[in-house]
């Protein structure tokens, strides 16, 4: 009897202990999911990539003099920065927040279900983010990133960021190839479900990874370790047409899913095209003529806008628009030909990439061809450089003529005729012989090809050549330089204020990022 009593008691105790766990298992959030299918996680990550680039492009475009502000001495036009502000910190958010834990969660699902292409795409996007982030910020948090036990995070210098790009590119290639090997598909509907960059085309992702590797290598062209051959090899494995361009789809149904450069977003109210881009397109730089000729480059009507009086004007450095009060002569809003007010009507029939549903571009075919041209030129292979340079111009013309919209990788608008393109190639702006080809030709044609969406890359080039006006012949050092610079030019962007300058200060101090002129420090990648 006593034994029975004790055994019941023991049973009860055991039952209680095991049911304790069950009883307390109510901490799964019923209000929001904590996991999701990889295909549901990928679209916002890709949208976040676009957001990071172009929110910051607003400011970096001013550094690179792609555009300026109508009022004089704008803080960005003077190569300064806004203290105590998150402005120009968006790429930081993209790397760590938009991609960050979301990619890790996507991998969880993809690894478990052996969706190797999602794993590969994750690495490709991360490699792109480290590359883009590293070029903007130089120092980044790589080794300690995403550690949930840490409250503060130590920085790594640019060399670590650059090495991380190569490492993750390699992993991306491994997984993408593994995916193809596993099911034999180059285009996977499973990946297409969440992929708004390449709609599931694994081969295009592989090309994109090579494009990132090429970019990673060409950016360190000042270093003794630089290998032009690697650039050529990577470029040759990357994009072969504008249909391979890395760009993300924009639905264009409301502000939240519309193209950054489209009317619905209304992001461009403050920006005025630069005098530099005007002079590149009206031939004054390439021909050396003092008079503009709007018939030379067919891209001029597509890329930039004329004032009401028909003259193309741009903002010089920090000077602002001297004609801002003159409705006939003021520099118009970016895509408002002759317009004196900001165009707000949503439209999908604008020129170039000013449509609400235009694809947001990360890298283009023309861009990688100019990588190759620059690499070969450095190597001393002038004919090779000339060929790549000529191909780059053609690729740029094709892109401007047929800008991609919605789910299409390329457009069919045909805004520039083949005859126009041939005329330009035969005209005075383009070098026809290897002997006459200069680095300035390559870099400035690249500058046009990058126009409006690629300011980050344009700024990389300018910094790499220390704002050399022999290469960037339309660039002029701003008349007014931000006071904290001490006369020096801007070379790096500060990490995001509300992330680092409040919450991670000791780590910033370790490499001098709290100094008032920190933004004039030269980044690792441009150093010899």
């Amino acid at each position: 009897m006593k034994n029975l009593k004790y055994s019941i008691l023991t049973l009860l105790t055991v039952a209680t202990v095991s049911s304790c766990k069950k009883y307390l298992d109510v901490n799964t959030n019923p209000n929001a999911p904590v996991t999701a299918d990889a295909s549901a996680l990928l679209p916002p990550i890709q949208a976040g990539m676009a957001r990071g680039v172009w929110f910051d492009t607003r400011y970096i475009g001013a550094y690179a003099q792609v555009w300026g502000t109508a009022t004089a001495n704008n803080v960005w036009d003077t190569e300064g920065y806004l203290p105590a502000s998150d402005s120009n910190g968006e790429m930081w958010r993209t790397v760590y927040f938009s991609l960050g834990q979301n990619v890790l969660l996507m991998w969880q699902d993809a690894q478990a279900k052996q969706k190797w292409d999602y794993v590969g795409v994750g690495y490709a996007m991360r490699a792109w983010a480290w590359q883009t982030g590293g070029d903007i910020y130089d120092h980044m948090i790589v080794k300690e990133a995403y550690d949930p036990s840490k409250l503060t995070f130590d920085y790594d210098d640019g060399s670590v960021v650059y090495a991380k790009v190569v490492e993750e590119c390699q992993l991306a290639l491994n997984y993408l190839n593994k995916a193809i090997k596993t099911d034999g598909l180059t285009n996977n509907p499973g990946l297409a479900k969440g992929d708004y960059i390449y709609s599931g085309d694994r081969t295009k992702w592989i090309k994109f990874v090579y494009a990132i590797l090429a970019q990673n290598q060409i950016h360190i062209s000042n270093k003794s370790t630089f290998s032009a051959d690697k650039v050529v090899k990577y470029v040759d494995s990357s994009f072969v047409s504008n249909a391979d361009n890395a760009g993300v789809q924009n639905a264009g149904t409301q502000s939240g899913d519309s193209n950054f450069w489209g009317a619905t977003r209304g992001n461009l109210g403050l920006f005025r095209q630069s005098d530099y881009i005007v002079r590149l397109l009206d031939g004054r730089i390439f021909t050396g003529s003092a008079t503009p000729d709007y018939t030379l480059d067919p891209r001029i009507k597509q890329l930039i806008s004329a004032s009401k009086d028909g003259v193309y004007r741009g903002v010089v450095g920090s000077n602002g628009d001297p004609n801002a009060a003159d409705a006939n002569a003021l520099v118009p809003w970016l895509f408002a030909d002759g317009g004196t007010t900001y165009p707000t009507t949503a439209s999908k029939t604008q020129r170039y990439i000013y449509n609400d549903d235009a694809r947001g571009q990360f890298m283009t075919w023309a861009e990688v061809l100019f990588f190759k041209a620059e690499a070969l030129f450095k190597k001393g292979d002038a004919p090779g450089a000339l060929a790549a340079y000529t191909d780059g111009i053609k690729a740029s013309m094709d892109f401007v003529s047929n800008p991609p919209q919605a789910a299409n990788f390329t457009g069919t608008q045909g805004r520039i005729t083949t005859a126009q393109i041939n005329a330009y190639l035969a005209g005075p702006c383009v070098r026809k012989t290897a002997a006459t080809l200069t680095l300035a030709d390559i870099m400035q044609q690249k500058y046009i090809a990058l126009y409006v969406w690629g300011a980050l890359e344009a700024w990389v080039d300018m910094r790499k050549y220390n704002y050399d006006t022999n290469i960037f012949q339309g660039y002029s050092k701003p008349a007014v330089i931000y006071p904290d610079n001490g006369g020096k030019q801007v070379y790096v962007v500060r990490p995001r204020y509300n992330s680092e300058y409040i919450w991670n200060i000791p780590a910033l101090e370790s490499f001098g990022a709290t100094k008032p002129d920190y933004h004039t420090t030269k980044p690792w990648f441009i150093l010899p």
Partner: protein
Amino acid sequence: MKKSLLFFFLGLCCSIVQTYAQTKAITGKVTSAEDGFPLPGVTVKVKGTTNGTQTDATGMYKISAASGSVLVYTFLGMESTERTVGDASAINVQLKESAVALKEVNVSFGVKQSSRDLTSAVQTIKGSEIQSTQRENFLNALNGRVAGATITSTSGNPGASSAIVLRGINSVGGNNSPLFVIDGVRVNNDPVDQALLTSNGANRSADFTNRIADLNPDDIESVTVLKGADAAAVYGSSASGGAIVITTRKGRTGAGAITYDNSFSFSTAYRFPEVQTTFGIGSNGVPSSTDRRAFGPALPAGTTTYQNLQNVVQTGHTQVHNIAAEGGNDVATYRISASMRNTNGVLPVAYNDKLSLRLSGSAKISPKFTSTASFNYFNVDNRKNNKGATGTYLNALAWPTTDDARNYENPDGSRRLILPASTTNVTAEGSVDFDNPLWDINHNFSRDKTNRVVSTVDLSYDPYKWLNVRALGGIDYATTAGNNMISQFSSSYQNSPLSGFAGTSGIAAGGIIDNYNDNNTQLNGSVFATAKKTFGDFRTSLAVGAELISNSDDVNGFYGEKFSQPDFNSVNNTTPTTQRTSDYLKRVRYMSGIARASVVYKEMLTLNATARREGSSKLYGTADYSYFYPSVGANFIFTELPGLKENKILTYGKIRASYAEVGKDPAAPYKIFSTLLQQATTGGGFAYDVTGNNPALKPERDKEFDLGAELQFFNGRLGADISYYQYRATNQIFNPRLSYASGYILEYLNGGEVRNHGVEVSLTGMPVKTKDFTWDMTLNFTAARGTVQSLGGLPEYYNSDTWLYLNVRSSVFPGSSTSNIASYSYARNNAGQILIDPTSGLPISNATFVVSGDRQPKFSIGYGNHFTYKGLDLSFLLDFRNGGDIFNGNELFLTRYGLSTRTLNRMTPVIVPGVLKDGNENSATPTANTIQVTPYNQNGYYTGAIESDFIEHNIRWLRMRDVTLGYRLPASLLGHQKVFKAASVFVTGTDLFLITNYTGADPEVNGTNSSTYGSGAAGFDYGTLPTPRTISFGVKVTL
């Protein structure tokens, strides 16, 4: 044991036999002096003998005693009384409640414990004291009555929530509210969190009653406050901020009785922010038709001006009716009570109607088995004013002084505008056409209706004399239906889910409905087996038990904009494409095992120990979801020492020490795995929310050391209870902003440490005690310091809800006080001189949050006095506070709006002392500012006012918390009728006066509401109606 009992009874019989022969029989009735009720169980003894008896259920006793011998009447909690046996054979005795009684207190799970055996700080307040204040929210009646308690009423509106914190802020990011227990059963005190509505508000614009305020004060027998972590050792992590243990009134044995009391109150607002009436509307000295700020030209002489806030407030009326019936015998007792309270506020339209029905009963089913149960139903209907930025109070303050705010409608009934009608969402301060306060109250709705049932069951079984098994169970179920409507003609704004939760005005949205239903269920039950045995000089007890808690709170929100029919208050009236819904279900469970042991040696030395293993669902998913913590305490009643035992001066002396640890889980569930948020970008899908959760979360670990002394002099005429405590709360769970490198923008983390220490002194004294006149008093002294030792390497942690207005917020820094105020301040050069903008001549803001104030007072004192003279009864409580800083947000608003009296000298040119920020500011020769500014022409002088100037330091107050004069009608007056057994009348005043150096209306307000975690926004005075002055009178009769 059995043997010794036998001897005890034998001895008892012998003594009775021994004394019987020489005596006569005395009979009599023992009643309570307070209410005349019979007292059963009173021990009546013949002094110096072992001859004794007890009163029966009707208070009657019978004893044999010799003439000339002395009878001693003793009853726990009452003053013992002696009577000499004379010729009379009947001796009726009235016992008074002991002022400084060595009472039994209700500490854990309904188990009463002698206060002698306690080893930590406990304070008990009588229910009658709380009732006499006539306060709607009984928590406010505890203010000044409990040492170590900080109670802040959110506002003076009917149904306002009130926050209580015991012994300071221990969790910078968690809940610091104590646990509430009624008759051994946990009940809910959480107000609705505005963030759970579809509009995801920030707890600023609306207040929601803290649910313990539902309790009818008339049902409270006593409130025992268990301070500090020692309470948690018994009740678990939800009591890490202490516990408030409420014992309700039970039916008494004896003849049945019905009591009825009522109260009629009149409330008036007093103390208003001062508003200038010299200058009219405009900016920079120029009149304007598109700006409402008072920076225009001086008003012509003879212009009629209005004090609009004063004109808008009214006298608030309250009436309360309580009726209770009780009765019972040895076997069963019952009590039924009903309360109806209707409160109208001093701001029009707002009201709070409360109904409470309570039934409690107990029955002895067998000599070994007792059952007690209660059932309480509440119905609360609360119509509210909006508070904060576009709330009624600020609307009244912002109304132009040249215009009578009482004239708020056009002849056709439409809203009378001051500025031209605007359809866009204006946010610049000057261009907001603030609603007229009266129009706002009448056209914008905010109303909560609550139905609640609290039911408790208590079963007690004594299988053996030494063993008790007790089971307690409780259900607390409440539904609240909330209705918020902003008229389509209103400039008031709130968060809208349609615009990414940005603020949207009624006009811009075309009218807003933001409703919710909150279903809150709290179930808890416990079983305890308690063994008590005495071994020689050792009296021991051991209790082992288990507790289960299961809470669920489901808030369904439904939202819509764009009314089809103007001002028709239904979500059905909103445009379908604007309709949004939300659902937030919160489930929390605990499962705990508890053991308590107590050893008392010679009634002199006590050692208590507790162990609790607690499993919390809120940590489920981590390795530490089940955690253990102990407490240990000891006391020494040194007056039991032979030399001190019969000391006439020091009658009772005890020193005590305790150490307790408590593990504390996160304040809310679902903080382990990060949650995904639906995205509106191309392709939709999910991405992580800004706040990351953390699978590595560990329970916060709080450690408290408590040292105390309890002293009583002159037989309890003078008493002191002194406590010193140290609190160390490590592994703080908070969700700071941190580096994005975490992958999130905010993240739940363990980090940092908080230390609190303080002194609490409760003095009780009875300077005069004669037959007709008594005077007793109590004094509660509190001095506490809370410091944030570290934030785990982070520089700052803030609660964004407290970022109410401009750049002032409740945030903590390493080394700062736990109730720190941070704000922007003046930018300065390296030498500390103020930097001046060389173009405007105005000072520059540092644009950084720095330590600007500390809301923690240096000390506070609650001083209560109680006089009785025959049937007259006068008591009052004064509250004195010294130190602590207040953010005068109203004054900052009025300054930026040109209405503050500090803007009156605007015609006088000034040169702001400082140096120009011209590049030389940090050189050896900075340029001194010589730029002259005439604020009249350059109102940037006021609109750019620096926030830190509006934090008022070292605030002192003396406040008449409450005063009550009562008169009990003498028996002679009641003698000839049979209806009333007893009757009394009273008049009570609450918050009659406030003397303070604070320049605003009242420093005791809360900028958010009591649901805000951490230190909240107590001491943030912005757009909140202060507590009005109230005078109540009423009668109380016993049938």
